[in-house]
């Protein structure tokens, strides 16, 4: 068997994380500064650092770099979108709908605030042109396309400096003929712009949502392409012969050469890779096919994801920069409760946490930056004793308790509280915010918390994980080996994963055997073609196609995803399909109506190509001579308690830590409250378990 090693990277705003798993399963995780002006540069610098380290290792390891499997996650596309630094995109829409991007779905984000406004349209009205021609809802032509008009519109937009043109014509998800004909006509005219079709990015109904996805794709494409070119060049220059894989928002990856056609599938790859990294960690820890909630608490937010039976849940309703994303994406729900979230009192004297954040500069008061005394959640962690004075977070300055205390005193003075009491209260509020969000997220996935376990990561996730678990009745928590590098780990462990959708839009009982079989045949062929294309660039061990249908009751607004058996489609077994729909609806909403008519909106295929992986890694045995634990006084839920303090490096497999205890490591701190205990698993992860009875 060939030996395989793998590398995963994740480019964040401040740091680039790299996880390297060598052919023997040894894992290394490093953090290097990101280079925002040149996104591939941080990755290459990190690789140089890893290469330098492996230079001292046996020759076999050096060889493995030539054939290393490497996958990359980044926020390159996302940042370009948020900062609106993408290409100059123009739009051609069906006549009568010039304001598709201005009107959006009409509603404003905060309808009770008279100052709330829709996000600025991704393409301004001046760069939108109309073309005559119309298809009906079933895809047939009502009015022929005005090809000359399309060319004229393209010419006008080219004159306004448009680089990429996106065609968003009504009902193109049912029938792309008009979009394709318009593209042909415009291309034939030799205009200096690229033309893309909304029906090729993601053929789904809802003209605004589909159109905006096409425009996002067009807008970030150039930036992503130049990033990928730079990355590929740098990798080749270091003797790495394998093609880069790029992490997708669905938790899988895709080879860079095909990804560059539709970078929109990678927009939320960072958080997605974090969730799939958590799934990988859980599997390594022996939590096979587990139902998990993931908690990632960073500087500005707490992000919550859901894993069912070992697989991250995909959603088609995520948002990015206030724009809807229809493409299947690992659902991550975010609230403004992170380490930098500002603590404040409202005018009624209620203690609030976030959603505003102190940001990286000045950071929490305990960073001591320019004497800032704006209190943030990290200050509360420090004053409550969760963190230690002098501890360094994410390579920043050592934490200073004095400014933190003074910052909290600004609040305490108004309440008649000590800084410790403010800290304790703020942590409780932050945990409640997370609990509120977590219970909602879990409910939306049709599940209830008590059956779940949690994987906590990010700088502050392990600090609050057990407190949150108490609130939502979760009894087991996993803290990964490298809680700061989970997205990079997720990338390193990613398989090739693609999503394909075929519109159907028919009443389920109106589809006969032949139609279902034909739909199945076409969809499977497309899925196999996707894998075959990938397999030209990388070894695929085996592939798998999961089928599902998006279904709804007649007239209903949202679809339920119904897992399908290929045999049902081949045999035209409508009864089995409808039965599965009723079951899925009941799981999601608690009720189902056996008599109501159901629609089959679309068929989907999720295709996975397994790539070779290094063997399951085993952490090196730790030094036997553990230093004696320290002690720290904590303020927790109104009480002062004394916790033992341990170094993560020093924990051995047979150690059981009873709470209250604190475990420090390079990139995070774990709190084990009273009624909880922790031990190190063979995988190297730390497991927390509740020992007390629930009241």
């Amino acid at each position, binding site marked *: 068997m060939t030996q395989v090693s793998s590398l995963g990277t994740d480019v964040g705003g401040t740091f680039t994380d790299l996880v390297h798993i060598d052919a023997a399963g040894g894992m290394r995780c490093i953090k290097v500064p990101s280079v925002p002006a040149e996104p591939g540069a941080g990755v290459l610098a990190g690789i140089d650092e890893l290469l330098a380290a492996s230079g001292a290792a046996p020759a076999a390891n050096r060889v493995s770099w030539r054939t290393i499997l490497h996958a990359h996650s980044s926020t390159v596309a996302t940042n370009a979108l948020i900062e609106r630094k993408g290409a100059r995109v123009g739009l051609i829409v069906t006549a*009568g*709908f*010039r*304001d598709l991007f*201005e*009107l959006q*779905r*009409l*509603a*404003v984000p*905060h*309808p*009770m*605030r*008279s*100052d709330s*406004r*829709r996000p600025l349209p991704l393409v*301004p009205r*001046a760069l939108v042109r109309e073309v005559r021609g*119309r298809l*009906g*809802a079933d895809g047939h032509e*009502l009015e022929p396309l005005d090809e000359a008009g399309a060319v004229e519109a393209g010419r006008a937009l080219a004159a306004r400096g448009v680089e990429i043109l996106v065609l968003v014509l009504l*009902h193109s998800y049912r029938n792309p003929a008009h979009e394709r004909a318009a593209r042909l006509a415009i291309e034939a005219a030799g205009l200096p712009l690229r033309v893309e079709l909304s029906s090729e990015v993601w053929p789904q*109904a*809802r*003209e605004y949502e589909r159109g905006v996805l096409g425009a996002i794709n067009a807008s970030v494409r150039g930036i992503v392409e130049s990033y990928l070119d730079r990355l590929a060049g740098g990798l080749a220059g270091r003797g790495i012969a394998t093609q880069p894989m790029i992490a997708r928002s669905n938790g899988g990856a895709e080879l860079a050469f095909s990804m560059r056609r539709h970078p929109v599938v990678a927009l939320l790859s960072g958080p997605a890779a974090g969730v799939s990294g958590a799934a990988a960690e859980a599997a390594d820890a022996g939590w096979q096919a587990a139902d998990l909630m993931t908690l990632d608490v960073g500087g500005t937010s707490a992000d919550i994801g859901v894993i069912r039976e070992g697989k991250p849940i995909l959603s088609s309703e995520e948002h990015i920069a206030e724009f809807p994303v229809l493409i299947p994406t690992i659902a991550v729900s975010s609230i403004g409760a992170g380490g930098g979230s500002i603590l404040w009192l*409202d*005018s*009624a*004297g*209620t*203690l*609030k946490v976030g959603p505003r954040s102190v940001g990286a500069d000045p950071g929490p008061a305990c960073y001591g930056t320019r004497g800032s005394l704006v209190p943030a959640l990290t200050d509360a962690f420090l004053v409550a004793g969760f963190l230690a004075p002098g501890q360094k977070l994410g390579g920043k300055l050592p934490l200073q308790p004095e400014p933190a205390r003074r910052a909290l005193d600004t609040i305490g003075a108004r309440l*008649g*509280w*000590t800084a410790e*009491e403010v800290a304790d*209260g703020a942590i*409780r*509020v932050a945990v*409640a915010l997370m609990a*509120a969000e977590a219970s*909602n997220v879990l*409910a939306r996935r049709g599940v209830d918390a008590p059956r779940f376990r949690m994987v906590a990561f990010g700088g502050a996730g392990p600090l609050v994980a057990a407190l949150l678990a108490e609130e939502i009745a979760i009894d087991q928590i996993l803290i990964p080996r490298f809680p700061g590098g989970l997205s990079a780990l997720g990338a390193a462990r990613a398989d090739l994963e693609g999503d394909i959708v075929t519109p159907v839009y028919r009443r389920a009982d109106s589809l006969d055997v032949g139609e279902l079989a034909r739909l199945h045949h076409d969809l499977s062929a497309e899925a196999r073609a996707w894998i075959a294309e990938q397999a030209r660039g990388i070894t695929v061990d085996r592939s798998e196609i999961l089928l599902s249908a998006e279904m709804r*009751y*007649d*007239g*209903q*607004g*949202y679809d339920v995803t119904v897992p399908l058996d290929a045999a049902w489609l081949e045999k035209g077994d409508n009864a089995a399909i409808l039965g599965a729909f009723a079951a899925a*609806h009941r799981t999601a*909403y*608690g*009720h189902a109506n056996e008599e*109501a008519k159901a629609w089959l909106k679309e068929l989907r295929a999720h295709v996975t190509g397994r790539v070779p992986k290094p063997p399951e890694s085993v952490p090196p045995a730790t030094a036997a001579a553990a230093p004696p634990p320290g002690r720290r006084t904590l303020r927790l839920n*109104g009480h*002062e308690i004394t916790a033992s303090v341990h170094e993560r490096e020093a924990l051995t497999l047979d150690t059981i830590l009873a709470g209250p205890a604190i475990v420090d490591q390079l990139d995070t701190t774990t709190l084990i409250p009273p009624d909880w205990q922790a031990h190190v698993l063979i995988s190297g992860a730390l497991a927390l378990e509740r020992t007390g009875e629930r*009241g």
Partner: protein
Amino acid sequence: MLEREPAAKEAVEVEIFANLFKAVADEMAWIVLRSSHTTFVKETQDFGVSLVSLEGEVFAYPYGSGATPLMGVPMHAGTKAVRDWAPGDVLITNDPYSTGGMVMHLNDIYLFRPVFAGARLLCFAWTFIHCTDVGGYAPGSIDMQNNEVFQEGLRLRPVRLYRKGELNQELWTIFADNCRIPALNWGDISACTAALARAEQRLARLAERYGFAAVTAAIGATLDRTERIARGVLGTIPRGTWRFIEYFEDDYVSDLPVRLAVAVTPGENGSVELDFRGSDPQVRAALNLPTGGMRHHPFLSIALINFVVTHSEAIHINAGILRCIDLVLPDASVVNAAFPAACGMRYTTAMRIHDLVLGALTQAMPDRVPVSGASNLVVTYISTSELGERGRVVVANPVSGGSGGSAERDGVSGTDLTVAFLRNVPVEVLETEAPVVVRRFDLNPDSEGPGKLRGGFGVQYELEIRHPSAVVVMRGKDRHRMAAWGAAGGGAAAVSGNTGLRPGLAPHEIGKQTVYRPELGEVIRLWSGGGGGYGDPTARDALLVAADVAAGLISPARAREIYGVVLAGDDVDEVATAALRAQMPARGKGFDLGLARSEWERVHGEAAERISAWLPTLPAGVRRFAEGAVYRALHAGGPGPYEGAAIEAAIAEVAEAIDCSV
């Protein structure tokens, strides 16, 4: 360890619980949204959920989804409707008149479920859906020309739809047989009952974990804290009594406008009184707003509620805000309708009252509130209900206009602040559900109220009808003549309207007809006006004007004549612009009420004041008739303006006629 004062301890507890309560409300909203069956709920999001205290106060509301204007409706008519609440009961009602204005039109189906923690009643969970059809004369149940509630569908006073979890099938049968789309309505109601059950589950768990007493205390504290914040914000309104008048330009059954009046008086301690005396008697059309004469009611308070929410960061939105807003409501009036006044389109009234109150607040603090928006909403339905079982009633789109500008920003285009929660129905969804082709949905150029900060633009909506049995229902039309006003030197906006275009013919006016029977292939065109402008348009940044011209939203002529901006191609001719602006007359700092309204007031201003004072002396049942009769008498005597003696004579003439007939 310090012993904390109760108030200080509450500073944390209340924040914890308020967030947990909100999470329950959010989860309910999500269930309704996802599993409901009608377009009006699922796409436009006209539904609501909340948690209600035993006293009937809303203490948690999901302000991110669903309809926001019902936030804070006093719910005691529901919670007190039953004495022997049992676990699993679900109360249903859609009747304004037996609930004292808790429900405001028959299309709103309210459901209540008592929330028990163990054997004890903790609070209530509530949902409402705007039911697309509840029977009655018109598909969709609402016709502006309805004059009695009996024409508006089936009424259910508060009764139990479920007893201890058992469906009252007979009751449902009555409802199902009296509406056009029973199966879809049942789908929506099932979604609501699922949400109610979930709320009980969640709250029972909270009570189990934290204790019944702690949760109960938190419900009260959540309301109290919000009230305290609201008082702080409302207390910043300058003292005085601030008056304003608004109109519907007609009452759908005659040309007589409907007058709305308010006096806003900030009082002690952050309370504000809204006195609506001087508003017209209830009318013989579906505009009446049944409020039961309640002291607090959100539909008359939207402008102030939004003012509080806009000016307080991260407030927990609940009925605590309503506690600070005291209403004075004349009986049997358009703002306090008496049985059996038709009330289907009462939200048009709520929208206009929003602008009425803004007009008063504009005088108190012009830089802190937006000016008038388009202030109407034409909800468009397509009905094929005549086809029987195969037929449907589908909401095509809510057609609103722009919102008003303010000292800080331009208005929103295509939606008004009072309906900013409503979403459109995607064309690709609508056309699979109804036999129509949408020909146009875009902004209406030159429709904005001009200003330094301009109003948002209205929209144009064109619908081609492709089924011979399709009936189009368009309710809520207004401001075809009287436009959204501008303030602080800003201009009034364009007006709205609608026409029909039959193949091969010239467009024809549809006017204010609600139920319209188009020909096959006819294109119905609706357009709306924009929001009013804020500040002198000649003070607007010329680059912004040029950008609107380049985008095709403002014509070059309008840029020149109204904004004083001269363009050279896409660019501003700065010299010519400065010269032109220098010679344009100053617009002053006051209101621009628009031509139609200014003319009406010039002729009828004095008469209206006098008539308003006289009407309350008459029996409720004859007031609107008497009002119309006086205006007719005046008009018979010449073109006006009407003054002193002529007005008294007209009143005397009508008074005598009434005396004879009553």
